[in-house]
């Protein structure tokens, strides 16, 4: 999933379902990932249902692509505080950069 220059990823192990976005701007039941990350609005939002330690989480995201990726690398020590704050638990190599591997339980805490 991509928000401008920021790319994020979720393990498919955590993915329970793709949902249809109902388009209701008053609907605050889903966690808007772009807003949580402080990034710009998503053009064409979609929603996914994600497994967490508690109740499943409805997550509003942008474009979704499902693909195999290399193993995640640990977060550099300098960034552990920031990554904990944005629920990133690892880094997935992507070309010249990295995508942030998100932790579903950390996302719950961003609510």
């Amino acid at each position: 999933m991509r928000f401008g220059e920021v790319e994020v990823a979720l393990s498919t192990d955590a993915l329970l379902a793709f949902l249809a976005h109902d388009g209701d701007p008053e609907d605050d039941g889903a966690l808007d990932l772009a807003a949580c990350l402080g990034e710009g609005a998503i053009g064409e939002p979609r929603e996914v249902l994600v497994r967490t330690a508690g109740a499943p989480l409805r997550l509003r995201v942008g474009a979704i692509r499902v693909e195999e990726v290399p193993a995640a690398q640990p977060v550099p020590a300098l960034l552990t505080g920031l990554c904990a704050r944005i629920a990133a638990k690892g880094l997935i190599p992507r070309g010249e950069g990295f995508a942030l591997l998100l932790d579903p339980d950390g996302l719950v805490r961003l609510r």
Partner: protein
Amino acid sequence: MSALLAMSIDALRLGLPVEVISEIADRPPSRPLPRAPAHLAGLASLRGAPLPLVELGVLLGGRALPPGEGRAVIAELEDGLRAGFLVERVHGVAWGRPAGPGATPLDDALRRVTRGEVEGPDGVLLELDPRALFEVSRAR
């Protein structure tokens, strides 16, 4: 005598102890990180390993370098803290004598991360304290 890597951002001349420097590289491409403080320029990939890039100028109360400009001084401490500090120019290694706290009044941002002034062959450098530099660079 201490060996420092002399570098500069605008008129600010700085020295970083060479023992913490692993590499000097052209500024690598990087991607921004969400909710990162202004001094964190982004995350780069250096031979496949993640490398946080720190705008040293911003950290010290000055300006950010234009995108794509500058050099990355890659430093690492024993406990695994590692970052690329972006500077405008790298001048080379300077062997300097400690000149004490220095006569130049420093603002808070500089005082927190410097040990004092060092007299090098080409003038006075502000010696950076690596541990303090990493501590203020940490993105929380």
